[in-house]
């Protein structure tokens, strides 16, 4: 069972989940400050019907077409979310909840139908639900790597633009940045990250790889640049470790392991994080209280009664 670790294919798979995790960590930071963490989850679920339809049309598991199908399906989901909240009285979170469940339900229905027909079982489409990194072949890996590196480059090159777009969009527009253009690029990198991640991590859990690393990174820094770098690091390491663990067990799904590793980093960050981590907060408060006790002042009443 350890033999898989020495195959060159597996090394490529590890590389691809490393870069995927890094890309997801970076894009996750954008989603975090756009306050759209849940959006990535909705879009990931919305990608499923596209994967199956892509398979039905081509008749084989060609990653390029499956990714294309997933992207189209996710973009339709994004469009629905936009449209529902602008044209009806339904709010954004409700719209996301609806798109998420309806698209996913539709996808599962299609998947069941495909699995009943001959050849469907062998196609391994099931692995798109929870991810199966080890099942990727070299061409899958290259497609994924190219797209993930593309995403990283876009985030990196436009770093200053992303910052102002996320921090103060109306000011950004005032100095001539096209918000429409930025919205389009943002949606494109988000959807690309999601669709390239679904083979390795699965539609259900890919959003976690976008959300968790960025939140963990927030606990370590007050600089946007460092937050993105750390988030990329957390995402990349989670991707590699998760893939590694899942490969040891034969046929174990990859997604859950990646998410568990990411969650482990999150708990560490939450407790030990230098910026408002639980432990630091506690120690700071205790030393403040001690100081108050040494030099008694009227405000001691507040310290005891309040926070």
């Amino acid at each position: 069972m350890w033999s898989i670790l020495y195959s060159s294919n597996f090394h490529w798979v590890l590389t691809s989940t490393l870069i995927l995790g890094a890309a997801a960590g970076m894009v996750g930071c954008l989603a975090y400050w756009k306050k759209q963490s849940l959006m990535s989850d909705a879009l990931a679920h919305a990608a499923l019907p596209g994967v199956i339809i892509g398979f039905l049309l081509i008749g084989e598991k060609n990653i390029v077409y499956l990714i294309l199908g997933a992207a189209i399906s996710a973009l339709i989901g994004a469009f629905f979310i936009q449209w529902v909240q602008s044209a009806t009285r339904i709010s954004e979170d409700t719209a996301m909840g609806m798109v998420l469940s309806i698209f996913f339900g539709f996808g599962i229905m299609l998947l069941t139908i495909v699995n009943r027909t001959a050849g469907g079982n062998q196609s391994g489409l099931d692995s798109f639900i929870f991810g199966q990194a080890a099942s990727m072949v070299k061409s899958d890996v290259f497609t994924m790597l190219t797209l993930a590196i593309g995403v990283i480059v876009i985030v990196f090159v436009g770093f200053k633009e992303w910052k102002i777009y996320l921090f103060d969009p109306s000011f950004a527009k005032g100095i001539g940045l096209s918000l429409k253009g930025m919205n389009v690029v943002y949606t494109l990198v988000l959807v690309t990250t999601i669709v390239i991640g679904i083979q390795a991590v699965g539609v259900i859990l890919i959003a976690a790889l976008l959300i968790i690393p960025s939140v963990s990174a927030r606990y370590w820094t007050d600089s946007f640049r460092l937050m993105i770098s750390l988030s990329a690091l957390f995402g990349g390491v989670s991707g590699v470790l998760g893939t590694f663990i899942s490969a040891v067990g034969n046929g174990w799904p990859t997604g859950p392991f990646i998410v568990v590793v990411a969650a482990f980093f999150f708990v560490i960050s939450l407790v030990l994080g230098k910026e408002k981590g639980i432990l630091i907060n506690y120690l700071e408060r205790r030393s403040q209280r001690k100081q108050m006790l040494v030099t008694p002042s009227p405000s001691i009443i507040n310290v005891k009664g309040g926070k």
Partner: protein
Amino acid sequence: MSKTVLKVENLTASYRKNYVLEDVNFEIAQGSLTGIVGPNGAGKSTLIKTLLRLHPPITGTVDFYGLPFKDAQRVIGYVPQRGSVDWDFPTNALDVVVMGLYGKIGWLKRPSKAHKRLAYEALQKMGMETYANRQISQLSGGQQQRVFLARALVQDADFYFMDEPLAGVDAATEKAIMAILKELKSYGKTVMVVHHDLQTVEDYFDHVLFLNRTVVKHGKTLQVFTKENITKTYGGNLRIHFAEEESHVVHPL
């Protein structure tokens, strides 16, 4: 007579189906310092946003310097309401001020040392240099407002729009901001400010624009800042509205 730098004709704008601005007409002369006053919901913020194309107009024309908007945009500075951004964003005061230079730096290029120096000087001007490296969420409301002002200064614009820069700031900040506005005016720059405190209008602004969904009155403060016009804009009893305005300081539009 100084030249007209902004000409607004027949401007109408709405949020959803409610008209917030109807048939707005006015002209602004170069070097004037105008206070926009009116009750809550009068469309003061919407007016600024519509002029700057941050909000789409339904009808009407807005003419800056007789230039196409793309060109005029270069010489316009905008200070949004302090509450319009998330101050928890991971960045420091200096960095926010550098953002004012992004247009000049050029898209996709990195800010240089010289840009950072310019930003630092703008912070100095606002008395904020000691806070340059401070995370922005750790600044007080007044300090955050000064950072926004510094960011506008560094843009070196000819025409400034400011949305309630004095809302919820301490007396020292208010003084510092007003000193800067007067200085901008002395350089021949034009400034329009959404203002909420009627009691200071006469001291602060040379022009007043009374707004309540449309322009009630616009002109030199000495001539148009009268009880009659205030009543016309706010409706009803003047004293009640003074009290009401004050209570609204905490929640700007």
